[in-house]
């Protein structure tokens, strides 16, 4: 399954890279000029999102650096453990909305821990959780930052609700299948 999808993705990228300029050229578009014109925006967009990313990542950096993530996980674990969210996976759930690489690192730790590993309940639950939730804060900062939106309205609430649903569903599904 994995090789098939990876091959398909690779081919789709190739198809876009070759197909779009070729199609444009056939349709009489000045493809080189159009490309350069569009690409120019890439730089501006990246610069525009810097303040938004710095704001959220500095706040999250302070929060993690202080050990507040671990403290939060410690406070919550007596409640979440009996519900099917073991103490090993809880930090992942806390980190996930803020940092995708952070939660992936924690998942790697679970895989590498003797007695747990990728085929343990914790390993499987963590895998499902990582795959079914998103880095909500990163998504909001990048996308809103690119157009200068500072008032997100209900976007944060909806995003966190999606993450919480992903977490709950992961636990329910993992409990039903793997425990």
């Amino acid at each position, binding site marked *: 399954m994995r090789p098939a*999808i990876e091959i398909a993705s690779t081919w789709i990228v190739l198809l876009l890279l070759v197909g779009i*300029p070729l199609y444009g050229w056939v349709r009489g578009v000045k493809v080189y000029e159009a490309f350069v014109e569009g*690409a120019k925006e*890439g730089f501006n*967009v990246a610069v525009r999102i810097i303040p938004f990313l710095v704001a959220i990542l500095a706040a999250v950096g302070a929060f993690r650096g202080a050990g507040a993530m671990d403290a939060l996980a410690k406070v919550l674990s007596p409640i979440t453990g009996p519900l099917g969210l073991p103490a090993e996976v809880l930090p992942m759930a806390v980190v996930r909305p803020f940092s995708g690489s952070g939660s992936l690192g924690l998942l790697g730790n679970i895989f590498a821990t003797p007695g747990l590993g*990728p085929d343990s309940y914790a390993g499987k639950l963590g895998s499902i959780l990582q*795959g079914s939730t998103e880095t909500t804060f990163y998504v909001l900062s990048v996308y809103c930052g690119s157009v200068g939106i500072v008032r997100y309205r209900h*976007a944060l609430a909806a995003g966190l609700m999606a993450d919480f649903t992903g977490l709950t569903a992961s636990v329910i599904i993992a409990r039903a299948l793997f425990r």
Partner: protein
Amino acid sequence: MNIVFVLLFVAAAIAGAVKGDVKAVGQGAFDGAAQGVTLAIGLIGVMALWLGLLRIAEKAGLVDKLARAVRPVFRPLFPGVPDGHPAISAMLLNIAANMLGLGNAATPFGIKAMEELDKLNPTPGTATNAQVLFLAINTASLQLVPTTVIALRASAHSNDPAGILLPTLGSTCCALTVAIISAKLLERVWR
């Protein structure tokens, strides 16, 4: 967002003080700030590449065609976006790239979509209903096959690296449904 921003710093300060390691709080913030710049700069290359290709597709009429083709699906979800608007094809491309796991293409398309949606925004600086719904869809992980997780499981010698595929898909569907419903319901309350 204002409250989240303050809360993170206050919680950090309290946790740092309790642990007696106040220095780590500042250091964490500085590291985070530097990381933000690195991330943004790192996006420039792929962003320029995809936005360049997108401009060719626009001029060749491809974007327009795409927008017309998916009109029936997007109309009920995004009633504020007119038929055939370029925002629709940008959103479609973003969602398709996300589903296929083409992360570096998804972000430029998503940004393009936000820009196009912002052209319809009567109140710049505040997100519109369409923008919030689009963001909500993006905060639910849309990837059909979680390739990174499967690869990590394989490298950790799992007996069944891809065994979590269907469970992940099930959980993703729940998250996506809740994302759309909550965006739609909250848009009436949160103005």
